[in-house]
């Protein structure tokens, strides 16, 4: 067992950190307030090879693995959790959906743009009446000649308004429920496909989340990814990978807030001494430090399990649960430790606390993670 990142991974981690601190940190407060996504910065990250980290070069990736990718999501999310999730959704949920099930020809057509960071990908599974119970989708894909016709509405799609490529799950055999779900690739601008409401959110406000509306939207037969009726399986597999991304996002948020609090405790003085000299606060930090370290090992392990070909459904669920709970706990404590300043925008931790909340909800709520983990315990 080796708990040390090798030199090359450390270099990669340091490089993403440098970019995030220099380029993403300025303006992060303004982007949160204005709900503006820094697409140009994302593209810049792509041009340097950091977007397609976990995928092969022939698909536009840069030939690293899932741990490299988790390290990048973590570093980005320390500063800007909105970009963290946008990146993660494009890689794990859109990218994962396609790479796990598509033909070679489809991969070469649908992946390079997204893996090279030139454009974003989105993932459309959730519907107003199908959230945790994703099998309850009602969006349909009816086969007509050599086409499929999509009808229905997907909600809460991260990257929806910005993406060029969409992995969309729809029923080819509605009577079969989850077993009738299939996966399709849909291009932005396809007639009959439009972006609906753009959500006004509590956190990750710079990320863009919207409805996807399909009204007699015709897509070619060749846009079916994998086999008809296997969509639910493909979605769950993509989400297993996605949960590693969300775990890394949570870890990054926790670390970002922790570091701000640590510095604050050393400089803020009350009762004639820096406030970290109060054992209550120092011990609190010691506990949070341990919580972060636990979270880190769990997500790195899940990422390596996936990279090295071991089963990763349960490790990913555990990492998502632990890391996102750490994010919520650490950010809430950080706000408290910064006192009144913690409540103010310019100290960042209040944004991080708002951002942390969503990590416990999307890509399977933490209750659903417990369902997955406990399900394996009592088989």
């Amino acid at each position, binding site marked *: 067992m080796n708990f040390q990142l090798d030199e*090359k991974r450390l*270099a990669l981690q340091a*490089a993403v950190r*440098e970019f995030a601190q*220099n380029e993403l940190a300025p303006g992060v407060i303004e982007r949160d307030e204005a709900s503006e996504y820094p697409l140009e910065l994302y593209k810049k990250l792509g041009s*340097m*090879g950091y977007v397609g980290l976990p995928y092969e070069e022939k698909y536009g990736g*840069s030939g690293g693995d899932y741990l490299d990718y988790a390290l990048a999501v973590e570093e980005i999310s320390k500063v800007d959790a909105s970009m963290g999730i946008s990146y993660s959704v494009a890689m794990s949920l859109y990218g994962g959906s396609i790479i796990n099930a598509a033909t070679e020809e489809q991969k070469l057509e649908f992946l390079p743009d997204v893996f090279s960071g030139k454009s974003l990908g989105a993932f459309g599974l959730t519907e107003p009446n199908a959230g945790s119970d994703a099998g309850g989708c009602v969006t349909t894909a009816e086969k007509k000649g050599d086409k499929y016709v999509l009808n229905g509405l997907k909600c809460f799609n991260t990257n929806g308004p910005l993406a060029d490529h969409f992995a969309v799950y729809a029923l080819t055999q509605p009577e079969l429920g989850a077993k009738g779900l299939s996966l399709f690739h849909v291009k932005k601008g396809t007639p009959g496909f439009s972006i609906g409401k753009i959500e006004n959110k509590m956190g990750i406000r710079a990320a863009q989340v919207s409805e996807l509306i399909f009204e007699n939207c015709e897509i070619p037969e060749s846009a079916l990814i994998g086999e008809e009726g296997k969509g639910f399986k493909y979605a769950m597999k993509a989400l297993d990978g996605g949960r590693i991304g969300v775990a890394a996002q949570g870890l990054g948020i926790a670390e970002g807030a922790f570091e701000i609090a640590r510095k604050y405790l050393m400089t803020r003085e009350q009762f004639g001494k820096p406030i970290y000299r109060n054992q209550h606060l120092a011990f609190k930090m010691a506990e949070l430090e341990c919580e972060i370290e636990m979270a880190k090992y769990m997500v790195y392990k899940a990422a390596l399990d996936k990279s090295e070909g071991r089963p990763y459904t349960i490790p990913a669920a555990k990492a998502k649960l632990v890391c996102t709970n750490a994010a919520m706990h650490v950010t809430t404590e950080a706000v408290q430790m910064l006192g009144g300043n913690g409540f103010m925008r310019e100290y960042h931790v209040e944004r991080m606390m708002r951002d942390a909340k969503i990590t416990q909800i999307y890509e399977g709520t933490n209750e659903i993670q417990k369902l997955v983990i406990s399900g394996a315990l009592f088989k």
Partner: protein
Amino acid sequence: MEPHSSIYQSTMEIIVIAKQVKMADSVKCDFAGVEAAIRLKRKTDARIKVVVMGEEKDAIAQVRDSISMGADSGTVLLLENAEIDSWICAKAFSDYLKNENFDLLLSGSFPIDADTIQTGLLAGNMLGLASASHIEDIDTGEASGLLKAKKRMEDRVQILDVKMPCMFAALPHPEAPIYKTVPGINRAYSVDIPVIKLDLNDQKGKIKVMDSFKIGERKRGKCLTAISTEGAAKEIINTIAANHIL
């Protein structure tokens, strides 16, 4: 032997030299030279090799960082048995470079050398190269075999047309950092980085630094108000003359 330039028909060969300086508990690395090389490589077809002098582990790390940013290859020079000063380092660099093929030799300007910018210029001199310091920007020249360089002075810039092979000490551009890329990092950790040990047989240093000055802050211009046109013209001419522009 004269270093000979390939008078780049196709690919310009750039060598960047950097010397590390050990401080109390850290090593000062100078990336201004390699950054200038990478900026030039973005404008023209070029190949960059970095030659770093320092302690083995730190120097290898600097070569790897340079390759991650966009250099193509690198070598480490270790000096043994010598009292290290700028002259000794310059001599070691120039001895090594005598056998290398390059069109442009680059070093950084400030962060090393006790800020005296000596090593690079001395090495350039020892190799008989046209040399210039405080270079802010480099472009390919109007004719082949020429480079156009912008040299920062106290109060102006000078545009130099220089014939290759030549040597420039480049200024850093902290406002426009050059980031490491994933292909760069992959290359940095897969290439071989030769470590060359130079035994200098107890040579003694030859340089004593008395003092050194940095370029001063640019002063604000003077605003002439309530003055006749003639008076203003005279004042401007005087200022220009006093600054040796005329």
